[in-house]
């Protein structure tokens, strides 16, 4: 960051705005984490809790990468680079899960 930019009033105003965003986001992240802990002890169907936990985890995940990691302000290419890694990670999980779920393999095809 050049010194000229660091003293630009618009730039400083933007940084102050972001500073407040970070504080708000940190409070939300703490609140969501608290809600997750309460949720697991509630007498509700497991599917509902699991969906809610996944959703809250995804919200926290994307909040951090978009705001704290500046992806919302940065070049779009960086977002897609990271998403490639994410998609491949999930695809690996899905593929291995499918592989391990195969129960009845007709072994005659391998002999």
């Amino acid at each position, binding site marked *: 960051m050049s010194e000229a930019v660091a003293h630009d009033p618009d730039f400083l105003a933007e*940084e102050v705005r972001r500073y407040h965003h970070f504080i708000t986001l940190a409070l939300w992240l703490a609140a969501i984490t608290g809600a997750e802990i309460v949720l697991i002890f509630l007498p509700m169907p497991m599917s509902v809790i699991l969906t809610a936990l996944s959703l809250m985890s995804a919200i926290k995940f994307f909040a951090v990468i978009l705001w704290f990691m500046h992806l919302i302000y940065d070049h779009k290419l960086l977002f897609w680079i990271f998403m490639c*890694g994410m998609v491949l990670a999930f695809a690996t999980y899905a593929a291995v899960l499918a592989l391990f779920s195969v129960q009845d393999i007709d072994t005659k095809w391998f002999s």
Partner: protein
Amino acid sequence: MSQAADATHAHAPTSTGIDHKKLIMWLFLASDCMFFGTLISTHLLYRKLYPTGFTDAEGHQQFIQKLFNIELTSFSTFILLMSSFLMALAVSAMHKGQLKSFRRNVLGVIFFGLIFLGCQVYEFTHFFHEGLTIQNSVFGSTFYVLTGTHGTHVAIGILWLILLYFYSFTGKLTGHMGGLDVEVAGLYWHFVDIVWIIIFTVVYLVEYLGPSGFWGTGLPLAQ
């Protein structure tokens, strides 16, 4: 994006318009994402295939839900989230050229990171004394490898931030490149945080779902 935001993330004179350091870091994070993806997948798959807990040295069946301490894990999760917040403030301070504020926030991140590592060391020691080792069960193997790899990432991040903290006293951590160095370190730290967000949910919280855990054998229903 506003003009000021444009100034903060001004396009570098490269073919992609992105600083090479930042681009390389994002490529590394994408690859690390796949790395953690495989570790988490392995843990979940083996948890599904071997849903029982583990047998301790005396031959007693132990249950994972009973072993975990949700209060401690929640505390360390909160600590790591707050360290991420301080890291964002440190990057912001560096962008504004406020070196003192940057140092204060980075010290906070290092402190919180050390607390997190302390919690993990305590947890590992406790589990070990309860009989869970990396060798005696599939759960032990996948759990220690996954959380241990994450802990190693945290330790590397702390070391990086300590070096950055002392480097800031040399007077070389200034200008665009100084800001970029801090931003790249920040990206790494936030990544460590988001990996923990996933681990916290899929490794720890799911063990508490329902009376006998998500995997069906967390605790006997009678207990």
